[in-house]
């Protein structure tokens, strides 16, 4: 055992020493980076979180109170050879008192196909929308927009293949498609033999003069859902005190539009810059909800739902290191079923409430590798209105790759 340890220590030492000597992109092979994210949260009320009109799943929630850790991420990536690039992201997070390692990303991507074509296979964040492909540590606010929370459990992540093409045109034009397993929230069930979900997206973008850059995207996602449970966050107790888990099966499709516009004087973002972005999604579902109580005859209802919402945000760096941001979120839903009571038990009755939230943040980045952020949110996403204050640090150690536009 100890010789093994010595051996691996020697291997690590060898890797690090070659890394220090070697040059260029391959200096760390693989590139290793570690993201550390720590938080302090303060809420005004203690009631259980819900998002009226939405079945919650995935990572959805309003975060935790007091001192806690966000996602600590370990990222390994490298060019595999001249054809492939590979990347793995492991997120280490605490859920209900247990430390869990989640495989967030594990994919290979082609480098050398040429003709503007890129193929990707494995587990990856879907190319849908704008924010979806960004890691939480790259977000401008401590949490995901409500619409991402409500529809995707914060982020749409799945196993499958991705194909995209950049057109050989002066303007940036990109189209892409994904076929994925559809086992994770919100598709759930891996129907169609594990090829249950698909995504299409298109993006255009360019510059406006020297100081402005923009991108506009549309995307569409659809899945056949088999037994999507509203996992963990949203159990309902029936009269006898037993647990019922709302379970949805049926069709689901999401259509979205996203835009981002960035401004920096003469294109030099180091002093001052402004970023405005917004996204809007609409989801349609048609199927049945069963209140699974492990009995032979659980309650059920048909369910024909429409859920929509978006966010609009602006982040302004007014001097080096300092940024302020403002975000407005809103949701709306219109869900119908044969049994309104069961629908309500499943959390799909919006109770006449249209969730919304105002968020204000300020952050300070000592270098491009460290950031401290204070955020205040007036959260009216559920009936008990809440004021949430979050203090957060995010740092990255090691060779930290570039962020997307």
């Amino acid at each position: 055992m100890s010789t093994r340890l010595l051996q691996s220590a020697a291997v690590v030492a060898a890797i690090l020493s070659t890394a220090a000597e070697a040059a260029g992109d391959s200096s760390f092979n693989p590139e290793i980076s570690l993201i550390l994210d720590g938080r302090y949260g303060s809420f005004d009320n203690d009631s259980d979180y819900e998002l009226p009109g939405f079945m919650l799943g995935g990572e959805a929630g309003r975060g935790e109170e007091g001192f806690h850790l966000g996602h600590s991420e370990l990222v390994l990536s490298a060019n595999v050879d001249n054809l492939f690039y590979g990347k793995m992201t492991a997120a280490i997070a605490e859920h209900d008192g247990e430390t869990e390692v989640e495989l967030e990303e594990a994919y290979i991507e082609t480098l050398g196909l040429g003709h503007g074509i890129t193929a990707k296979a494995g587990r990856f964040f879907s190319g849908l929308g704008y924010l979806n492909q960004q890691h939480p540590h790259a977000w401008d606010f401590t949490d995901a927009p409500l619409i991402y929370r409500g529809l995707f459990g914060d982020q749409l992540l799945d196993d499958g293949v991705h194909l995209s093409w950049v057109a050989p045109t002066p303007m940036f034009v990109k189209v892409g498609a994904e076929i994925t397993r559809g086992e994770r929230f919100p598709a759930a069930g891996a129907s169609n033999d594990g090829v249950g979900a698909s995504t299409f997206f298109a993006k255009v973008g360019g510059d406006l003069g020297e100081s402005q850059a923009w991108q506009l995207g549309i995307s569409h996602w659809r899945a056949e859902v088999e037994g999507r449970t509203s996992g963990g966050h949203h159990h309902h107790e029936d009269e006898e005190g037993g647990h019922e888990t709302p379970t949805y099966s049926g069709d689901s499709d999401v259509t979205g539009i996203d835009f981002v516009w960035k401004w920096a004087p003469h294109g030099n973002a180091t002093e001052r810059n402004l970023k405005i972005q917004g996204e809007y999604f609409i989801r349609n579902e048609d199927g049945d909800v069963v209140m699974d109580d492990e009995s032979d005859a659980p309650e059920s209802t048909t369910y024909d739902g429409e859920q929509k919402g978006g966010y609009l945000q602006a982040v302004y760096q007014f001097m080096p290191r300092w940024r302020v941001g403002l975000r407005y979120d809103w949701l709306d839903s219109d869900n119908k079923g044969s049994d309104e009571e069961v629908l309500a038990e499943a959390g799909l009755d919006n109770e006449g409430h249209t969730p919304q939230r105002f968020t204000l943040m300020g952050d300070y980045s000592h270098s491009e590798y460290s950031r401290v952020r204070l955020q205040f949110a007036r959260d009216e996403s559920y009936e008990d209105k809440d004021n949430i204050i979050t203090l957060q640090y995010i740092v990255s150690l090691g060779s930290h790759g570039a962020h997307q536009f």
Partner: protein
Amino acid sequence: MLSRLSLLLSVIGMMLAQSANAGLNVFACEPEWASLAEALGGDQVRVTSATTARQDPHHIEARPSLIAKLRRADLLICSGAELEVGWLPMLQRKAGNRQVLTGQRGYFEAAMLVDRLDVPEVLDRSMGDLHASGNPHVHLDPHRLLTIAMALSERLIELDPENGALYEQRRNDFNQRWQNSIEAWEQSAAPLKGLRVVVHHMDWSYLFDWLQMVNAGALEPKPGLPASASNLTSLKQEMEQNPAAAILYTHYQSPKAAKRFSQLSGIEVVELPYTVGGAAEVTDLFSLYDVTLKRLLKLVQ
């Protein structure tokens, strides 16, 4: 419907025809390499630069317009040595263009062709944003630039052999003019030897190495970190012991820190062009050196 379709097809046809034209599409990461490619390629190359003199080449984003440009490029020319590490790898992955991947013939990394200064002995982030391969701002030494120019010309010929004779002729012209210029610059710059200057960032190491000038300190406490009040105070004390002739900064850096330090220390601020486009009269590499020397020589007159 049919006429619309034919219109669409003809537009696509035009786009394809454009990309099939003779000559090369060159994507330069920095204006100095765009200018060098124009000097060596003439009408045979269509050059775009990812950055301007007003932009910090360390920090730009892999924005959509750049992806579209790199998608159509036959040749990518960058300083390299990790200067563009924050955005170029992302751009290469997004563009889906096999020709310009690292290691391909369409990838030209200028700094790696010459000896580099400031290669750190220890890599530690607490020391700032260091480049493991050394200082990448190599274009401010005319001898190194000539080495790079000759290699770039070879690459143009290799990628576009049909126009080989034209590239060769342009190379010989450039070589001759550049060597003559070096001689003239070195003669006029003799009084700069030993001149002490304060810099904003380590952009000028190669210029100082060439002219035997002395870097007396930096406004940035560590490479890549913004100038801080405490650093300026300690730098001021150093200046009292051993004064410098000027504070140098360039377009893409905020003049605020340089001006503040000038008020503190009484040392003159000099803006240098750093790259092509860095001053109105700097339209190519020749005028870049002319203007840089002219502004520095004012300090010793």
